[in-house]
Each structure stands twice: as structure tokens, then as C-alpha cells.
């Protein structure tokens, strides 16, 4: 057993951490609530530098044009993003959008991956719908073949990074019932296509998303990614990777929140002494530190099984995300409570970090949903 990072990953971690620390102001600017100027949701300059640093390439395998791409590469990158509270849409452009094109695309389509790795192209996955909640197979948007064209009709919900994306990877049903795994296809849709309209908005935890309406949107058949009706497996694979990345990002944020709280308990004076000298608070700090170690192990479990069987992945990912969901909520709430009023202010870094932690639970399946998936899997 060896739980140390490889030299390559250690270097990636060090350089990314340093870069994010040096660019705190730029990173935070994209998270300000009420900033209606920034319709990108992130800082384009920082994005370019992340690409230069090789951070995007680290999320893809050599075969796909990157240089890493394993579970622990994802967790190395995302833990740092989480620690810094970054809202840069690496999950959306690289892991989801880029990952799906790499998995399903033909040679021409795959050229887009190169541009993603180079930092020149943005993507979003338009998959969730108003009625789908966290069910990956639930797709009501339809794709109808009409001669050489395909016509998309439906509504996609809370599509993160949609406004900044050059292409949306859109899921639509070509056959089957609304919640069948079979019959779902993916399409590459230029964002400025006729028949596509966006209603963009900010997200509480930073970044932006949009409601996407597809109103008889026409595509040529070569916009389809892979074979008709068979995208589910690739979608599952991409979201599995995204869930591991998200768990790692949340872990990084939990570390940051815990560290800020630890420092605050040592410095904040009330009743003539640091509040960290009150045992009521000491024990709670100790609990956070224990939970943090548990969370780290859960992320390691999930990342280490990302190449395992489908069943193994499902079990480990649900376990990790359920544990992170519980421990994350505890860390976020306790960090705020132990700080008192100051942590409630938008200006104080912890507020943003706490929101990242809690709101992560609303992607791909919340704590309860993960518990159900775990039960399904362990009973199977």
C-alpha cells in the first residue's frame, strides 16, 4: 500500500495550488453574488492559464490527447480547485463535455477535444430536465429524424456553463419510454443554433447556468455522437468521473473550511481568551477533523475504483458521495456556527466555500439519493 501521490501528481498539485493561491482575486471575482456584468461565470484569463499549466490535459488520457486522466489525476486537480473555491467549469467543459466527445465522437468530432485541452473551447452537458431530478435515464426531450436532419424538442434544466459554451452536448430520446436507458442519444449542438434559446442566471455558489429550450432545433445527422439511442453507458461513465471529481472538489473545500475555522478559533477573542479554549468548541473541531479524514478515505476509495466494474464503481461512488454529503453538511454548518456572524458575510471567504460544499450535493444525486443507490448496489 502506498497512499502518496506520484511525483507527476505531486508536481501538478504543487503548481496548481500555487497558481490558484496567486490568483485568488480573479477567482473570487466570479463568485460575487449580484455581479450581473460577468455573464461568462468565470475568468477567461485564468482559464487560459489553467490550460497552459496542463490542468485540462491532466483530465484526459494519452489516447484522447491528454497526458493523464486516471481517477487520482482527477482528484488531484479537483481537490485543489475545491480548496481555492474556484468555480471554473472544468467539470463541465472537460470531464462531461470533453469526456463524452472523447468517448463517443468520430475523428472530426474528436478534434474538439484538442481545442478543449488547449483552453480554446467551452462545452456544457445539457442533460437534466425539469422532471428528471437525479435520474440519469429520465429524458423527455425528443430527437426526431426528418430526412437527413434531426429535430430536437424539449427543455433542459440548470445547464451549467451553457452561456459560455461553444457547443452543448444535448441528450435526447430517439426511442423508448421516458425513463429507459435505451434510446438516449447525444448531439453536438452549436450554442448559437436557431431553435435554441437560453435563459441564463447566476448560481448561488458561483458560476452560471441556464434553462435551455430546444424548439424544433434542426441538426444534420452527423451532429450525433456515437450510434443512435445508445449513449447511456457513456453518459454513466462520464457522470461517474464527474462525481469523483466533484467529491474531491468538495473534500478540498471541506479542508479549506476546516482550516479557516481552526485558525479562527485560535485568534478570535471573547471573554478575554481565544474561543478555541472553550471545550464546547474544541470537541466540535475535533469532530470535524475526524470527519475530514473519513471524507478523504471515501474519495480515495471512489477514485481508486474508477476503472473497476460498473457495479464496483456504482457502490464506491455512492458511498463516497453519501459520506461527503453528510460530512460536508456538517463541516459547512459547523464552520459557520463556530465562526459566528462573520462567516455569514458574503465577503468572508468561508461563506463562499461553505456554499460550494453544500450546493455540490445538488448535482448528480444528493446524499439521500446516493444512499438509495448504495442500498440498491449492496443488496444486488
Amino acid at each position, binding site marked *: 500500500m502506498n497512499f502518496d501521490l506520484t511525483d507527476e501528481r505531486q508536481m501538478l498539485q504543487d503548481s496548481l495550488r500555487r497558481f490558484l493561491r496567486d490568483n485568488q482575486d480573479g477567482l473570487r471575482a466570479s463568485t460575487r*453574488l449580484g455581479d450581473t456584468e460577468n455573464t461568462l461565470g468565470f475568468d477567461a484569463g485564468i482559464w487560459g492559464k489553467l490550460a497552459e499549466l496542463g490542468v485540462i490535459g491532466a483530465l484526459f488520457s494519452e489516447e484522447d490527447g491528454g497526458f493523464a486522466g486516471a481517477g487520482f489525476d482527477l482528484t488531484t486537480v479537483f481537490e485543489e480547485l475545491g480548496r481555492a473555491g474556484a468555480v471554473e467549469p472544468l467539470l463541465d467543459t472537460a470531464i462531461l463535455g470533453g469526456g463524452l466527445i472523447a468517448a463517443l465522437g468520430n475523428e472530426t468530432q474528436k478534434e474538439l477535444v484538442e481545442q478543449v485541452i488547449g483552453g480554446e473551447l467551452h462545452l456544457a452537458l445539457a442533460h437534466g430536465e425539469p422532471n428528471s*431530478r437525479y435520474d440519469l435515464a429520465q429524458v423527455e426531450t425528443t430527437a426526431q429524424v426528418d430526412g437527413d436532419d434531426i429535430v430536437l424538442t424539449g427543455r433542459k434544466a440548470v445547464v451549467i456553463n451553457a452561456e459560455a459554451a461553444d457547443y452543448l452536448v444535448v441528450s435526447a430520446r430517439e426511442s423508448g419510454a421516458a425513463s429507459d436507458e435505451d434510446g438516449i442519444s447525444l448531439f453536438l449542438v452549436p450554442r448559437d443554433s436557431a431553435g435554441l434559446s437560453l435563459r441564463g442566471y447566476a*448560481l448561488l455558489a458561483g458560476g452560471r447556468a441556464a434553462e435551455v429550450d430546444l424548439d424544433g432545433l434542426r441538426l444534420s445527422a452527423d451532429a450525433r455522437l456515437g450510434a443512435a439511442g445508445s449513449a447511456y453507458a457513456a453518459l454513466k461513465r462520464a457522470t461517474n468521473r464527474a462525481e469523483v471529481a466533484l467529491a474531491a472538489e468538495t473534500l478540498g473545500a471541506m479542508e479549506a473550511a476546516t482550516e479557516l475555522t481552526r485558525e479562527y478559533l485560535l485568534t478570535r477573542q471573547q471573554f*478575554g481568551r481565544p474561543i478555541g479554549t472553550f471545550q*464546547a468548541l474544541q470537541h466540535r473541531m475535533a469532530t470535524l477533523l475526524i470527519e475530514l479524514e473519513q471524507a478523504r478515505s471515501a474519495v480515495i476509495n471512489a477514485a481508486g475504483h474508477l476503472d473497476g466494474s460498473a457495479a464496483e464503481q456504482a457502490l464506491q461512488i455512492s458511498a463516497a458521495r453519501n459520506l461527503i454529503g453528510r460530512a460536508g*453538511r456538517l463541516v459547512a454548518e459547523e464552520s459557520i456556527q463556530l465562526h*459566528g456572524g462573520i462567516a455569514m*458575510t458574503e465577503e468572508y471567504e468561508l461563506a463562499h466555500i461553505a456554499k460550494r460544499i453544500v450546493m455540490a450535493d445538488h448535482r448528480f444525486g444528493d446524499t*439521500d439519493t446516493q444512499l438509495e443507490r448504495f442500498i440498491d448496489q449492496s443488496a444486488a
Partner: protein
Amino acid sequence: MDLNYSVEEQAFRAEVQEFLAQKLPKEMSDAMRLGHDLGKEGHEKWHAILNEQGWLAPNWPQEFGGCEWNAVQRHIFEEECCRANAPRIVPFGLAMLAPVLQKFGSKAQQDHYLPRILSGEDWWCQGYSEPGAGSDLASLKTRAVREGDHYVVNGQKTWTTLGQYANWIFCLVRTDPDAKQQAGISFLLIDMNTPGIEVRPIILLDGTHEVNEVWFTDVKVPVENLVGEENKGWTYAKYLLTHERTNIAGVGFSSAGLEAVKRMARSQMHRGRPLIENPHFAARAARAEIDLMAMSTTNLRIISRAASGQAPGVESSMLKVKGTEIRQEINDLARRAAGAYAMPFVSEALEGGNEPDMGPEGSAAAAPQYFNNRKLSIFGGSNEVQKNIIAKVKLGGGA
């Protein structure tokens, strides 16, 4: 033991329901139900409606224009207001300052300020906390130095709720820097329009402008604005706190919140069934409801004891802790029920415009409210401080 309300109490409840059905504007209850902000005008409007009815000051004695309702009546009124999604009355003037003036204020102060509180002419805010004085309130540093017929005030208050709307602030200030902490503090009424006062907004993590910093630079305050005696302010502050801690259990808010959670969970499908039928979600909602049912009775037990003249002791601390835990859990359930639609931050919707929520009804406010209500366990004496009080009473001085 009788768990039922008396005939008179039931008649009173019917009267309150009737009033709310007639007088509570629909756009107001809609905004409240969806968790949208009312704005200053909204608060003032509801204040005026209650004043016209003579129901603005449930806790005031009749001689000052109040209803002089007993604790059970007040409870019924609050419960029905919450159930009907009526706005919360801003407590600073009516529920906090007024009892202090009624007990410790001069006749001139009572005659001047109390009617203006009722009419809504004055909007009060509370200037207790300072950056270095939170839980340890007695360490406050804002100085008031007497010069002739004025005090000259210098210092900074913080967390001043709705101070941006207020034209008056009641403050704790240090008048004797040499006295032991609690001893040198006075209770001052300060006109916010006095030169030297600056109000700076603090934006909270849900994007709301609810609290402020208030800075005082050589602010001249007439000595008539001192309440009671100089250096005795701590006594009045503590008296005020006993009033601040009424309705601390927030049973009505929790009941209304739980209803909203159930509404949303009925409308959301999860694994082919309404979320409300999902065993994990349903179990958590049921646990919150069970806790709430018991707390509602704990609350009534304490209230009926208070109605018969016994002052609540550590029970109010217990209600604060349990009540806030339950409300925060219900906020968490609402956020979860909203699913992915908890993520959007659509300030136009929250600020009371007619922008509909992006997702299910109530979803826009679900996560912001969850974060905003982290304050419940921090302010008004944090839950840790409440537990210290409970432990101190039950275990003795060691806590």
C-alpha cells in the same frame, strides 16, 4: 391536563383567522410563502394594517395602546399569522425597545416614542453588537463621554439588522471605562440622522442586505436620550433580552416551513413517484414533524406557565436551541426537495418582483433561506451560549 384550547381561546383564534382572511393582502402572503423579500414598503404596509386593527402591540399594556394579550393569546396570534403567511413584525421598536421604555423610560420618553412606534413614524434598530463584542457583549467599546447637556459618542456597532431603514437606534455605550465590564454601560437612544453617523451595508452569504455596520464619529446625543440611569444600561439590556427571547421557538415558522416542504415534495417526482413518498425523504420529514409536535407542546407548557405569572427560566434557552435546530432542519429539507433547482440564484425573483421561480414553487428561496437561517443559531445569544446557560443553572458555576 387538558390539551385543548378553552372556548375563549378558540373564539379568539377564529377572530384572528377572520381578520387575516379579510385584511392580509394576497400579494404579501404570496411573497412570504415563496420566501421573497417584502421590502421596506411591504413591512410598513402590514404594520399599518395591524395598527388600524389595534393589534400591533400584543405584549404592551393597554395604557400604552397595546392589546395586553396573555401568552396563550400571543401564541395563537403568531401561529395563525405564520399559517396565513403573514409578514413577521419587525421586533426592534415594538417588542424590544418598547418594554424597556415602559419599565425604565421617563414619562417624557414614553409619551414621545411609544406613539411613534405604533404609528410607524420611527423605525428602530438594535445597536448592541460590535466587532469585538459578540457573545461577550459586555466587552463593548463604543464610548459616550458627557459634555454638558450632550454625550459625545465614538465607536462602531455591527450586525445592525435593517439599520438601512431605521431612523433611530438604541445603543449600549460605555460611559465609565474604569468600571468593571457590565457596570460602566449605558442605554442611549440615538437619532440616525445626527451628523457623524455612517451606515455601511454588509451583504450576507445569500446576497441579502439585511445587516449593517454603524459608525459613530463625535456624534452629539442629548442627555435626555439616556434611558434610566447612567451606567445601569446592562440591567435594561438584560430586561430587553428576556423580551427578545419571546417566540424564540418559532413554532409557527416551522409549521409553515414544513407545509411548504411537503407541498414541494408532492410536486417533485423521484424514481417514478412523488418525492413525498420516497422513504428516505419521508423519514427525515417525519422526524422533523415529530420533533416539532413535541416542541410545540413544550412551547405551550412554558407559555401557559408564563401566562399564570411564572417567569420562564432556562426553558427559554431550551426553546431557542431546539426551535432553531428544527427550523434549520426544515430549511435543509426544503433545499433538498428543490433538487437541482436549488442551485440558481435569481435575485429578481427573491427581491419580490413577479419573476416566477425557475423550478418548483418555492425553489428559488430554498437554498438562500437555508444559508440565511444559519443565523438563527448564532444571534440572540448563540446556541452554545444558551447551552452554557442551561448547564450553569443545572450544574452550577463550573460551566
